[in-house]
């Protein structure tokens, strides 16, 4: 091909029809980006393999009894995950019980009620709540929330509802109630944001039809908007659950880390994440470390399941919306 230095136009045009060089560039780029995309897959696979290898001593020693045993005795090297699994589920459920009404309420406010000049800044602030590092929320939890829970809240609940097993025992402050509240604070922004988006996707005609029937605003929201996006809301809640299950720092700082099954919300407990966080760097011996790694695997399995369910539900919601239009 000719190539002259002068600023002529024709010499610039490519006259080679096969475009071999260009196609080679595309090919190289395709493979290059593909390799990097593959790294994401490799990381996940490696994560599964490496965790399984390191957990192997515990898996071989305890088998399935690991999931049902309540022991955690590094001296005798007896390990079981039940209290941690129980604590993880319990603290997350408490968090959801607190967070769901608040989140859905906020989402209704942001999507249906607030005038535009409030909606934007309010959404922004709630997003900011999600951005605060977990360790700072934990710090706030220890020094502000826990003392507050210890005397006014637990004192009141204990003296008025003390006949329920939920509210028995001395008020420590640290414990499931504190962990549940802290987790609620951390999942509220997520559930709120996703619910708000899902509600906004409800066609305006749905609301108008209800108003035309003489329904009040609340009736419209309750009878039309919320049922219409039910599966999306469930997806949002499960997404929040996924976050709550794996949340580590803030929970570790306020849950009290006591390895026991308990029915009282006041008593200290443990979650899988808090157990790993508080013991891993001091653990020694293949079996001890292996048991902690197996705990991590269990946590991974639970969150994986929850996340997949959430994603499928939000997906279905979105695809229903797309085909509906």
């Amino acid at each position: 091909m000719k190539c002259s230095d002068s600023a002529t136009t024709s010499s610039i045009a490519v006259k080679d029809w096969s475009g071999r060089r260009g196609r080679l560039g595309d090919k190289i780029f395709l493979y290059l980006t593909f390799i990097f995309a593959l790294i994401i897959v490799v990381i996940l696979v490696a994560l599964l393999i490496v965790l399984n290898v390191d957990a192997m001593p515990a898996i071989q020693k305890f088998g399935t009894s690991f999931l049902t045993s309540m022991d955690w005795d590094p001296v005798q090297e007896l390990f079981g995950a039940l209290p941690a699994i129980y604590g993880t589920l319990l603290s997350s459920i408490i968090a959801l019980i607190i967070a769901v009404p608040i989140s859905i309420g906020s989402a209704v406010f942001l999507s249906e009620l607030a005038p535009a000049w409030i909606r934007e800044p309010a959404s922004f602030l709630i997003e900011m709540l999600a951005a605060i590092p977990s360790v700072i929320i934990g710090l706030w939890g220890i020094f502000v929330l826990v003392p507050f829970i210890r005397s006014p809240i637990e004192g009141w609940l204990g003296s008025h509802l003390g006949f329920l097993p939920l509210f028995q025992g001395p008020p420590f402050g640290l414990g499931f109630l504190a962990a549940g509240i802290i987790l609620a604070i951390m999942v509220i922004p997520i559930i709120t944001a996703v619910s708000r988006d899902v509600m906004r996707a409800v066609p305006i005609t749905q609301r108008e039809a209800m108003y035309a029937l003489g329904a009040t605003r609340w009736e419209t929201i309750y009878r039309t908007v919320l049922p219409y996006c039910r599966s999306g809301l469930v997806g949002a809640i499960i997404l929040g659950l996924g976050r709550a299950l794996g949340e580590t720092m803030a929970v570790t700082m306020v849950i009290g880390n006591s390895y026991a099954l308990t029915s009282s919300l006041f008593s200290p407990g443990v979650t899988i994440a808090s157990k790993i966080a508080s013991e891993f760097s001091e653990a020694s011996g293949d079996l001890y470390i292996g048991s902690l790694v197996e705990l991590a695997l269990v946590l991974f399995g639970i969150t994986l399941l929850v996340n997949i369910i959430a994603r499928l539900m939000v997906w279905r919601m979105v695809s229903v919306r797309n085909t509906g239009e």
Partner: protein
Amino acid sequence: MSESGSLRRKWTNRIMLILCGCAAGLCILILALIVGYTIANGISYFNIDFLTNVSKPVGEVGGGMRDEIYGTFILVGLASLIALPVGLMAGIYLAEFGSPAVASVVRFIADILAGVPSIVVGVFAYALLVRPMHSYSALSAGVALAIIMIPVVARTAEEAMRLVPNSMREAALALGINRWRAVLGVIMPGALTGIITGIMLAVARIAGETAPLIFTALGSAFGVQGLNQPIGALPLQIYRYALSPYPDWQQQAWAAAFLLMILVLGINIVVRTVSRRKSM
């Protein structure tokens, strides 16, 4: 009968709407409480010494967090160094080059990876690097943070590139530009604001991550010594000091939290304001 029914409906309506408003107000109140306490408790200890001194043993006054601040920057830098190329290239693949079937698998796995609890990522980094190397290290912590960062960067980069109108892609192709040049020369610059937003938000997120550092970075009393040595970090020190029984250390934890909060929320506020304005 109908009179009282409509009255009841009116009051239900009013009460429920007010409750929804209260719920949103409560969220903002919680934010205000956390930010307010952190500022109030942190600012009193926050001074030049805190930024320039190294940590001191209990009882000695005037300890600071110079090394931990430095360590946080090193860890975030290291993680970005690993995560940015991988995340960006994977994002390009997802948005521009991937066949729909393969891309949706990769996308799904990226979402799964993004949902893995950070503590599990920490355990992975421990098992992958700390154990074979027989030492806690800055490197293993950087890798852990990078693994958290990669799916976030990849997915936000993908979304940002998808927002570039298809007409730009076609215009570039119609000029006889190859796809890879079109991506680098037209699509990427067009998506730059979105990509940078995603990167900055990912940086803000990993800067505050603590769980994966506990048994990778570990913390160091001897400052920053090298990538194969333990290293301190701001969030890690907050965790340690917050759980300590010494009021002086607890004070420092608040001051460090104040600094970290300014850093993380600062990035968030700046990035979101800028990207919001740009998108309008």
